[in-house]
């Protein structure tokens, strides 16, 4: 049973606040991804959990033990480092066995567990090699094998795939996911690659400037971003933003983008009503808009700037007012630069964002309940 709880953790480097009052609870055997751009504090947070750097204040619990000031070896954790940190002077076997040897596990037990870990990662034939005789992908496997061989309750991974080339990363991603499901350790995985995060994590904690902005399942993070940063950070292409003005018209609320009126879903009406007359940001993903080559009712006429055929879809860049947005269409959809097309915005796919705070607006549940 190893739940990880970070309570009010703060870590500063000089004037830079790397981790800013972070609270995070990772359930037992859960796979949580810390996602964010470089310098957001995700690695610092991971290292604090590992015990490689102490927090300035706050508390870190693993299971029901307070480990805030314990050295790493007393935390019952394991880790895969970004550069793998596979010892170059030890054979693969000794690398994988390292943690076990330090824990004074009996010799035959070590042998058994190294073998098992190596087999899980398909490197059982390389045990006598030195790391210099292996490829980057194989070294990565050694690093993972070393981490899982110690059977720690908590497995920490610091951008483990970032040093692999694209193809290998894709392959390793799936394999890691399968493996981690199998070993049932509580896992925290740091990455800056949102696709990795979306595809692997049970939950994703999106970080920026030392704070966790959103901590949700991948679908929630993707579909219902908590704020403009998360919306813009996740997804390829990122979510589009359009500025519009809220106008009340005899009990109804519309958001006007130029002359074009967007009609929000009923659950949002109450919330939006408070923004009457103000500017607001509408966020919508490229694949959620409908592109038409003919005029249609409730479709907005726009001009295409760029067409990018991507095989599985065509990505159009279009201008609406002062905003540039991307629209994904079916690959058969015909469009050419400077040609007009028509776009339809499904109301349930629009996320409304406060222009000043950047926070996503939520349906006014209080109102609905009462």
């Amino acid at each position, binding site marked *: 049973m190893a739940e990880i709880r970070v309570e009010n953790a703060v870590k500063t480097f000089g004037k830079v606040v790397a981790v800013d009052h972070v609270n995070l609870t990772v359930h037992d055997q859960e796979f949580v991804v810390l996602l964010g751009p470089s310098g957001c504090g995700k690695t610092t947070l991971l290292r604090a959990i590992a015990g490689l750097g*102490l927090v*300035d204040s706050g*508390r870190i619990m693993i299971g029901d*033990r*307070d480990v805030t*000031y314990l050295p790493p070896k007393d935390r019952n954790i394991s880790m895969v480092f970004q550069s793998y940190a596979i010892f170059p002077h030890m054979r693969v076997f000794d690398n994988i066995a390292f943690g076990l040897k330090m824990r004074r596990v009996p010799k035959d037990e070590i042998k058994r567990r190294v073998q098992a870990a190596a087999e899980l990662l398909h490197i059982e034939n390389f045990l006598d090699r030195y790391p210099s005789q292996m490829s980057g992908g194989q070294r990565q496997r050694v690093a993972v094998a070393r981490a899982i061989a110690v059977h720690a309750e908590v497995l920490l991974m610091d951008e483990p795939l970032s040093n692999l080339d694209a193809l290998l990363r894709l392959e390793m991603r799936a394999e890691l996911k399968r493996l981690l499901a199998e070993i049932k350790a509580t896992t925290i995985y740091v990455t800056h690659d949102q696709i990795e995060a979306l595809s692997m994590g049970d939950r994703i904690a999106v970080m920026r400037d030392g704070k966790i902005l959103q901590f949700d399942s991948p679908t929630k993070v993707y579909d219902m971003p908590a704020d403009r940063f998360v919306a813009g950070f996740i997804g390829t292409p990122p979510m589009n933003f359009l500025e519009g003005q809220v106008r009340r018209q005899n009990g109804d609320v519309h958001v006007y983008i130029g002359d074009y009126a967007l009609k929000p879903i009923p659950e949002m009406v109450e919330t939006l009503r408070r923004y009457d007359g103000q500017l607001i940001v509408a966020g919508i993903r490229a694949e959620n808009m409908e592109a038409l080559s003919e005029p249609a009712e409730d479709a907005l006429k726009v001009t295409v700037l760029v067409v990018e055929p991507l095989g599985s879809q065509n990505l159009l860049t279009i201008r609406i007012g002062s905003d540039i947005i991307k629209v994904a269409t079916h690959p058969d959809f015909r469009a050419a630069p400077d040609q007009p097309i028509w776009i339809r915005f499904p109301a349930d796919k629009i996320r409304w964002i406060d222009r000043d705070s950047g926070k996503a607006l939520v349906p006014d549940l209080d109102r609905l309940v009462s």
Partner: protein
Amino acid sequence: MTTRALDPVQRRALRQRQLRRAGTYALATLIALWILLPIWLIGTMAFSTSRDIYAFPKQIAPIPFSTETMEFFLNQQGIMSATRNSILVALLTLVLSTLIATPAGYAISRYFFIGRDAFRLSVLAVRAFPIVILAVPLAVTFIEWGMYDRVYSVALMHTALTLPTTILVVSSVFTSVPREFEEAAKVFGCNAWQAFMRVVLPLVLPGIAASAIFTFVMSWNEVFAATLLTIRNRTLPALILYQLNKSSLQFQYAGGFFMLVPSLIFIFFIRRYLFNMWGQITK
């Protein structure tokens, strides 16, 4: 730090951390004392009165402070001219060594040519070699050539002593300037010489200056070859060594301290580059 009750395990872990940190500081300070204390003691002697020098037990600070001993030393016959010789030799060595080594260092760092590795390795081998031992045959040769007992012949010897190190240091300094800088300069219209003068030189100058200072210190300190190559035009260490057996304690203490002072100053200026100088041996 938040004030909250820590359980005993936490408290012990925290205390262990603090203890280890304190221990490291203590160790660091102890080693620093091991190096500084002897310097302080000879400094104390160098600035004590002659009565204090022969006193027992010894005082551990120069009280009363007196320049009597230093003056006695500096007024000894030949000390001033030997100091002048030493500075002259060191400066000549510095200039010669830097002038000859810089092109070679540049070549090793920037060009791939047949024999590059051989040249670099032979420079490495020469550096590992006890060059001062060459003083004996050089002295004999210098006598034959009429160059014996001259300031410049000591400088020639010292240049041979410092040249390999300087070549290696300079090459590592050049290597630390990305080749792209030079290429960019050339793309934007410099020829090779201009690219070197305008882009590379300003960047390597501090490193080369450090290596020059180190050359100076090596020459200033060198005693074996200087003693063998000179009779009347002694350098400072050579003179002190020669007179050691017939000299007073005042002479020895003041002389020791006087020779030591430049290193205190120079090492301060080049401390950042020390690893450049020796770190690259294994690379």
